[in-house]
Each structure stands twice: as structure tokens, then as C-alpha cells.
């Protein structure tokens, strides 16, 4: 979707505002927000792709006004309600009203080390041969799907070159919506600054994205 999260090339957000010796958390609630998000992720009820889509579906004005952990909390509220773990009423009141769905797994303290160490690999075998090879000239698709995609707007309908074939990975555009992992080949595709930004582009700039095969057309 063309949501507020798709920020590449937008303007007006001001300087970067890096902080010297920045702490990992700026408030106690940010620590809890991280922990709640990771804990709920281990229910196994939704995928990382679905959680990304829940965040990017926050109304644009709210998304851009929120700190990043607020974005996470808004996302987790959506997911908890959608999957029946908590009702909207419970989430807005904080009161436990009904039991709701039971998860497949609840993260306990003694599981944390192994769960974090294991991570969640999303490379998968792909049954077909890779359609593109290093050096191939490709054009990215021009599309504006209503659902989740990882092809940013600034890189649509652009000509680039395949720089690496990265392997097969779960396809987020399907996986975010419960439509299966449907793995595809992923390629690193590199573009000139001029191709992406046109007039006035930095001539010394190249930009790459990692693109699923169906985002690409042969030139």
C-alpha cells in the first residue's frame, strides 16, 4: 500500500537529529513495548510481514506523529484484536473482560535466550530456477497494490541491473495477508541516482533495493 511508512525521497522532515551517547530506551514504557511486541510475536499467530503491514496501516497523520515504539504498540493492538486475543474494548479500557483465543505458545523468561538466538529465518527453497542472473537489465513493476508490498514507491517503474541473486525468500506481499509463504527468488537490483531522481540527482550516487522476482520485468 502507498502508506505513510514508504518514506524514501519524501521531504520536509528536517535534520537527522542524531543524539550523542543515545540510550537504547528513552522511557520505561519503550522497554515494555519492545518486550510485549516480541512476546506476542512468539504466539505464532501472525508473521513479521503481517506485523509490518499492521504498522503501515496506521493512518498517515498518526503514523508520522508517533514515536517508533508507539507505532509498534498501535500495531500490536491491531494484531491482538484481529486474531482474537483481546477485544477492542479490553485494549482501550485495559480491563480483562473475556478470555479470548489461546496462543500456541507463550514466551516465558527461560525461553527468551533460545528464542532470540534462534531468530526467524525466512529463506526458503524455490522450485523454479532463478529467472534473472547477475548483470541482467531489469525494470521494476509499476503497481500500487492495496495490500503489503516491499517495493518502495521511489523504485517503481525504474531501470536497474541485477547485482546479486540472494536466494529464495518468503514473499511478503502474500505472507502478510495469510496467503501463504509462496517463496520467490530475491535479487539485489542497483539503480543510478539519475534513474531514480532524474534532474539534479547526485551523479556519484547508486541505490540498491532487494527485490522479489515478481517485482521485476526483463528489459
Amino acid at each position, binding site marked *: 500500500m502507498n502508506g505513510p511508512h514508504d518514506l524514501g525521497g519524501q521531504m520536509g522532515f528536517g535534520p537527522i537529529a542524531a543524539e550523542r551517547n543515545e540510550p537504547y530506551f528513552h522511557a520505561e514504557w519503550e522497554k515494555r513495548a519492545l518486550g510485549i511486541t516480541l512476546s506476542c510475536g512468539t504466539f505464532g499467530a501472525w508473521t513479521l510481514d503481517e506485523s509490518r503491514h499492521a504498522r503501515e496501516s496506521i493512518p498517515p497523520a498518526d503514523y508520522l506523529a508517533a514515536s517508533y515504539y508507539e507505532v509498534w504498540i498501535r500495531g500490536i493492538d491491531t494484531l491482538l484484536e484481529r486474531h482474537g486475543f483481546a477485544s477492542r474494548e479490553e485494549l482501550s479500557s485495559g480491563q480483562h473482560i473475556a478470555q479470548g483465543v489461546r496462543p500456541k505458545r507463550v514466551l516465558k523468561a527461560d525461553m527468551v535466550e533460545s528464542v*532470540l538466538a534462534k*531468530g526467524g529465518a525466512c529463506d526458503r527453497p524455490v522450485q523454479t530456477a532463478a529467472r534473472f542472473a547477475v548483470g541482467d537489465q531489469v525494470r521494476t513493476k509499476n503497481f500500487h497494490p492495496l495490500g503489503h508490498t516491499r517495493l518502495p514507491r521511489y523504485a517503481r517503474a525504474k531501470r536497474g541491473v541485477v547485482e546479486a541473486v540472494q536466494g529464495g525468500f518468503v514473499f511478503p506481499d502474500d505472507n502478510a495477508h495469510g496467503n501463504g509463504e509462496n517463496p520467490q527468488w530475491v535479487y539485489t537490483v542497483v539503480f543510478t541516482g539519475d534513474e531514480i531522481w532524474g534532474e539534479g540527482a547526485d551523479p556519484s550516487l547508486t541505490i540498491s533495493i532487494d527485490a522479489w522476482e515478481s517485482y521485476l520485468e526483463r528489459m
Partner: protein
Amino acid sequence: MVHDHNHSDDHDAHDEHHGHHHDNQYLDMQARVKALETLLTDKGLIDPAAIDAIVDTYETKVGPRNGAKVVARAWSDPAFATWLKSDATAAIASLGFAGRQGEHMRAVFNTSESHNMVVCTLCSCYPWAVLGLPPVWYKAPAYRSRAVIDPRGVLEEFGVALPDGVKIRVWDSTAELRYLVVPLRPVGTEGFSEEQLADLVTRDAMIGTGLALAPEDIR
């Protein structure tokens, strides 16, 4: 972009005191997240001790010192650098760093001709296993919007002026590959131990918004 919410003007303060919230307004994040943690704990969906363990992991165990060790090893050991170039996930795992948001690593090496910079324009993808949790600026709209269109301007704000003729390559982390920048080894570090070298490797140098420190910078 750490800031308080900025839309509290017309909100009923009475509601907020009682932990109730409009659906589209998250006013008091400390209260909101505390209520959420209590609700989910009451429902048996989360374990507060697991949250403590997650926070402890990312405050004390997993951080940019991991990545600095990888870079220092690559500077010291050409065979390791070659391995890191061809199979970063395995090379990094050999030093004991793996797991969540480090499942599919790629290392990109700066040269005297080309400088690498990493961004996630769509969300906040970041190599947690080697760099820990990302700083706020990395997740905020200013960096995510500008890194791809004005990387030189961004670098200037970080105090980095690249020599004339150095090209810039921006890597937008749009898929599940996570990028670690291997900065150029500073001059005057011949004979340094890996530990001494690691002290010169900053988090920002491994994102590409900084350079490795010179020995005189830390004396």
C-alpha cells in the same frame, strides 16, 4: 524523533486518568503500555519476566560491540574478510553472533572509491545481531526519507565529508537481508590488536553514517 504526542489539546483529561483512550489517540504511553502489559499478563498471554529478559539482552548483551569485533577481525585476518564477503551469516556466526535480525547477513566493504550507507526506507530493518537495537534517528522519517535522495547531505550532518570522487552506494533494506558496513581501516593502526581495532569501530561507521575513528580520536 523522540517527542511527546502532540495532539492532546482537545482530549478529555478525565478519560486519560482512568486509562481510557480514543481509538485514534494514544495519549499517555506510559499508562497505555502499563495497562496493556497488565491485561496481557492477566490473560496469561505474556510473562513480565520474559520482557525483563528481552530488555536485558538488548541493553547488556547484544549491541554494536558485536559488530565492532566482526570488523576488527576482518581488518586483521584477510581469510576472515574473504569469508565475510562471501558468506557473512556464517562468518559472523563463527564469532558467536547470530539470531533475531541477523539471520541473513551481508557485509559490504568500503573502499577508497566507494562508500556504503544502509537504510530501511519502509520500516526499521537493522542487523540487531551485530548492532543491537537501532538508534531513534535510524527509525525516524528524516533519515529514512533523505538517505536515498540526499546521502551526502545526511553524511554532512554526521560530520562526514567524503573525499572528492568517492562514490556513494545506498543499500535500502527492503527484504530480509541485513547489511553491515565494513569501514576502511584507519591509517596508523599497523600492529594494533583486534581489541584495539574494535575500539575504533563505531556503530555509525557500521551503518555507513560515520567512518572508523582514527587512533588519535580515542587517546
